[in-house]
């Protein structure tokens, strides 16, 4: 099995807010992240499969990029995540919740190979990985 990774970027605004909490409690829990602010996210999607005997490729990288853009990036790039992505009206748009959202979107539509990992970099120093439900024992 070969793993193939495509890296794409998107820019979005968000704020951390737990709607069940008071303004003061949100402030205490999330600090300035409770303000609307933004990030340049870097998304790495890794698929796994055998290279096709005819093309030598697990998946054409250009096709993988277009797939990622259509499946998720179009709905996240230059958007306000809390406002424009229905699930994040109530779910807090942390990187942890974002990778699960991205994984679910991608896994539903991917054919011909397996989704292996979704990695989301929030900045140079931090990223979050999701390997799906099998992740813990794979």
């Amino acid at each position, binding site marked *: 099995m070969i793993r193939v990774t495509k890296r794409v970027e998107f820019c979005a605004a*968000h704020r951390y807010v737990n709607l069940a909490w008071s303004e003061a409690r949100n402030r205490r829990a999330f600090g300035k992240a409770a303000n*609307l*602010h933004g990030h340049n996210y870097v998304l790495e999607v890794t698929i796994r499969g055998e290279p096709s005997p005819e093309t030598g490729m697990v998946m054409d990288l250009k096709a993988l990029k277009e797939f990622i853009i259509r499946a998720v990036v179009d709905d996240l790039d230059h958007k306000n995540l809390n406002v424009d992505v229905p699930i994040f009206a109530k779910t807090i748009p942390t990187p942890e919740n974002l990778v699960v959202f991205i994984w679910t979107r991608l896994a539903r539509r991917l054919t011909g190979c397996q989704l292996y990992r979704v990695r989301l970099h929030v*900045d140079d120093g931090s990223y979050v990985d999701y390997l799906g439900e099998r992740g813990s024992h794979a």
Partner: protein
Amino acid sequence: MPRGPIRRASSGVPIVEVTQAFKFSAAHRMHNPRLSDAVNRRLYGRCNHPSGHGHTYRLAVTICGPIAPLSGRVEGGDDLPRLVQERILDRFDQENLDRLIRPKDGVTSTTEVLAAVLWRILDAALPVGMLHRLRLEETPNNFFELERDDPGAHAVPPRMRPRGGGVRKGSRA
């Protein structure tokens, strides 16, 4: 290869540029309220999206001066991290830029306008003439730079720096 001279202070000491980089995260929307919605959409494209979007901005601040004989360093840069923290990061990090950019700063929160605002703040906070270049990266692929149009500025000797933390009120920008 021609071997031209490097820049030197009048004392003959080489002039060196020193750059320190910082990061902050902020939201914004590019929208000029004096233009129609349709014109704004054409002008700013996806950056005009009504509910806003955001970036991790990277700010690189360059000071420029002669190598000081005793320290072997370009002096004056020691205060820079604290000044950037207090004057810029504490104010702009994890904030909505559209609430901080005022109409007199520019029509909307383009990175050009933001870079000019940050230049004005830093130029006022640093000793006269010390700020040499400011580079603001909206993404690794798009960046905006301002540079002092004053070739003599870097020759300001260190002893001219004001006392008391090196903070000066008032700005020429």
